[in-house]
């Protein structure tokens, strides 16, 4: 019996990657998709050889056991609550929410309905990060003193640059992955955050540059560059890096360093051809197995998603008030 999964909205570009993972997974079936953009639903159903449902309600009334939500950020909460009410397990694209109260409502809805709510943090599955975690836990660098992370990218455009739909700009788009890795690596909560933001890259009514400074509950400090600062000619979409500074040494992780440099005369540009493991697939694979009844191992829970997004939300307030502020629990 294959695990039956549906996708709610293709607003987020990661939906295509997850659809591909589901189509190639031996024990998963992409039953269908629904989207508030009906045309997009039709086009994506054609592309992924699956069924387009007329409405989210119709998708949730079908035989699907679980859904992946890839809508605009502000729609995560209502869609997750609908899916929970229909008794479907949920994997929700990041950031989990754009307001703390929405995240709380999502967690409560999933708990009330007895369904799983997971957050799409594929970086957790990166073999480079997993090995970093093992090295750190083995005591290789001694006492942890500081962390330095980056998750820079190019501007995705579209609704990502409309704060009414995304909840902000670069900061909310690119804070949560590394915030989650820091929590997972250290087992510590991020309790305080400061941020500087700017818009000199695109001069829009949203932040395209974001530099966060964070303090963990044990006093370890960290910074994170969450800017959309990669130029159009940059050879790839961006990066995820994390350095851990310890009393006995340092570990530096560059998650997408496993690439070839491709000098592409046809496209008249240089690109990176990534050859590392597909972390989206590793994440979707565990989601499928958990829906089938296996225990969770690496998947980020709804609570994990909440904690990481709460760092971004506190960072926006800190940037506004010009002072470090606590992260809301």
């Amino acid at each position, binding site marked *: 019996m294959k695990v039956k999964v549906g996708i709610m909205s293709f607003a987020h570009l990661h939906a295509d990657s997850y659809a591909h993972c589901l189509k190639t997974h031996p024990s998963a079936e992409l039953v269908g998709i629904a989207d508030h953009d009906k045309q997009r639903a039709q086009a994506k159903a054609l592309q992924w050889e699956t069924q387009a449902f007329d409405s989210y309600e119709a998708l949730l009334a079908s035989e699907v056991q679980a859904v992946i939500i890839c809508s605009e950020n502000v729609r995560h909460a209502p869609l997750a609550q609908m899916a929970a009410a229909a008794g479907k397990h949920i994997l929700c694209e990041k950031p989990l929410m754009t307001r703390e109260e929405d995240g709380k409502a999502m967690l409560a809805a999933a708990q009330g309905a007895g369904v799983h709510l997971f957050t799409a943090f594929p970086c957790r599955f990166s073999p480079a990060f997993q090995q970093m975690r093992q090295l750190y836990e083995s005591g290789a660098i001694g006492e942890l003193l500081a962390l330095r992370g980056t998750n820079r990218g190019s501007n995705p455009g579209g609704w990502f640059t409309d704060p009414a739909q995304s909840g902000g700009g670069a900061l909310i788009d690119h804070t949560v992955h590394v915030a989650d890795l820091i929590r997972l690596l250290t087992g510590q909560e991020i309790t305080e955050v400061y941020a500087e933001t700017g818009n*000199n890259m695109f001069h829009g009514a949203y932040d395209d540059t974001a530099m966060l400074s964070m303090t963990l509950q044990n006093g370890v400090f960290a910074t994170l560059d969450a800017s959309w600062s990669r130029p159009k000619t940059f050879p790839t979409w961006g990066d995820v890096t994390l350095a851990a500074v310890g009393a006995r040494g340092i570990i530096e992780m560059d998650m997408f360093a496993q690439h070839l440099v491709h000098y592409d005369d046809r496209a008249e540009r240089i690109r990176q051809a990534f050859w590392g493991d597909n972390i989206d697939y590793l994440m979707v694979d565990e989601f499928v197995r958990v829906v089938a009844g296996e225990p969770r191992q690496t998947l980020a829970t709804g609570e994990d998603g909440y904690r990481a997004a709460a760092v971004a939300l506190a960072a926006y307030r800190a940037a506004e008030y010009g002072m470090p502020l606590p992260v809301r629990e």
Partner: protein
Amino acid sequence: MVKVGIVGLGTMGRQHMDAYRQMPDVEIAAVYDHHTDRAAAFAQEYDVPVADDYDALLKACEIVDICTPTYRHAEYALPAIEAGRAVVCEKPLARTLEDCERIVQAVRQHNTPFMPAHVLRFFPEYRAANRLVKSGALGAIAAVRMRRGGDFPRTKSDWYADFEKSGGVILDLIIHDFDWMLWTLGAVERVYAKALTFRNLRHLDYTLVTLKFKNGAVGHIEGTWCDPSGFKVNFEVCGDSGMLEYDSTRQVALQIATRAENGAGGVQVPESPAVQNPYYLELRHFVDCVQSGQTPEITVEDGYNAVRLALAAIESAQTGRVVRL
């Protein structure tokens, strides 16, 4: 012949001596170090005269080059300026803002040639980046990240480990990056910093500094005396029309790797060969300015502003607050 005197004969004193030796129009008229044995050894090695005391050095030369530890800069700079000597002073300008102010006032009062030795401005990679940014090649600057450091610097007296003397990684090390940023991007509005400096970990210091510039750009500096892999620098500057990046571990023109005698591990030494090294270019520029009456590229106010920014970052790291300039 221009007569130069060097005070402070440690690592930087030697570095500067090597540069002056390549200038046929420069005579090292005197050297001085309050460690008399070190002064004697230096004098013998380079065949230059040792001054009996600092006054004797001041009398013997036209240019005074101060290469002492930071906390003693003012003590040597002020009498030199007051004696009307041209002064080139190692970075940071001084350990405290009060000392910096005294130096600035003295330079203004006596109208003497003065240059804080922010040698980074003469490193060709940093100079090229400054030129490109200022030419507008990257458009409006949105973000700049700089990284500097390696393992903890060790000296006989271990003065780097004494925060009161060195100012730690924020004042001593990333003053270079502060100066480059001020030179390239202009004034800073506010700074927020985290550091290990006040945890008093033996021979470990590290900082992550966030800056907001008046022009709206956001900056980040990592300064480390915690990295056992050796000294490394990198930077990237992102603008609305492009980006520059430099990484000293990647852009390496020459590398030599040798096997140890016993066959066990070797040492790799990366090199950046150039016709003239940055210390030569820096000191040549100052000597030329003294001879021609031109104002040096790096002013005493630049030295003051870099220290002011570094001390603001230290204050932020110490108090946990954002410090506005």
